[in-house]
């Protein structure tokens, strides 16, 4: 059976929004990389002050949450609302892990007197990761809304565009982090 479709899963308006968001992050990444090119020593020195263990936990949490969201979409397509809700709640818990770990990092930096004015590296690190942090937060609001609507019986095997739309946004948040993680924490 040829399963090819003309449009991606979910609402097309969300995909336009996703592309706009990805463009902004691409500019951010390029700005970071070329600023680093002018201050290699500074970036390499302060990159070593970051907690790569926390970054690993956050990366694993986001990948796992994406997997859970994908399973939720697969279940709602089969009209399995209860299973769909369970996967969505599991994904939300992984999102919460990300927010808690990242908040811990911010508290650590703040107590060490680090802020946007400390140096160019920290300006990029804090603004990039906080911008992404806000996207995770928005993604969790969307996933929560989908979970409630699924629980209310608004989604089924025949009508599940909302679940696919929210899932697409969440995967976008994950993809952005997958580039951010090595760029900011590892590559030197």
């Amino acid at each position: 059976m040829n399963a090819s479709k003309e449009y991606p899963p979910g609402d097309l308006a969300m995909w336009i929004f996703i592309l706009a968001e990805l463009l902004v992050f691409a500019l951010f990444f390029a700005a970071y990389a070329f600023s680093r090119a002018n201050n290699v020593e500074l970036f390499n020195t302060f990159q070593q002050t970051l907690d790569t263990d926390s970054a690993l936990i956050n990366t694993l949490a986001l990948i796992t949450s994406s997997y859970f969201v994908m399973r939720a979409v697969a279940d709602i397509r089969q009209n399995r609302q209860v299973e769909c809700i369970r996967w969505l709640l599991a994904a939300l818990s992984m999102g919460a892990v990300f927010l808690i770990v990242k908040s811990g990092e911010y508290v650590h930096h703040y107590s060490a007197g680090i802020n946007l004015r400390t140096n160019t590296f920290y300006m990029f690190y804090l603004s990039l990761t906080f911008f992404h942090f806000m996207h995770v937060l928005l993604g969790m609001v969307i996933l929560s809304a989908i979970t409630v609507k699924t629980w209310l019986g608004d989604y089924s095997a025949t009508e599940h565009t909302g679940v696919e739309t929210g899932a697409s946004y969440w995967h976008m948040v994950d993809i952005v982090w997958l580039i951010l993680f090595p760029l900011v924490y590892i590559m030197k």
Partner: protein
Amino acid sequence: MNKTRLADQPYLIRPCTIVYILLITLTILSWLIGKSGISGLHVAMLVLLFALLKGLLIGDYFMGLRSVRGLWRWPIIVWLFVPGSLITWAFFITA
């Protein structure tokens, strides 16, 4: 075979789970490289390649773009190529 419903296929280990394990493995490899302290252009490019591959896997298998034809098949692939190229360029000029 419906490519968009990988999670529903009756395998011992679902293809989507294999993709998930691959994503986790590549992430841990990147982290280990970072932990080891080794650096240099080739190492940075290897880590970037892992990241781009992971993005491709998420787009194709988790977002379901693998089964989309035409224009909408490409946004994630093109997006990964753009920052990937710019980051590569920026690292090359400092090597």
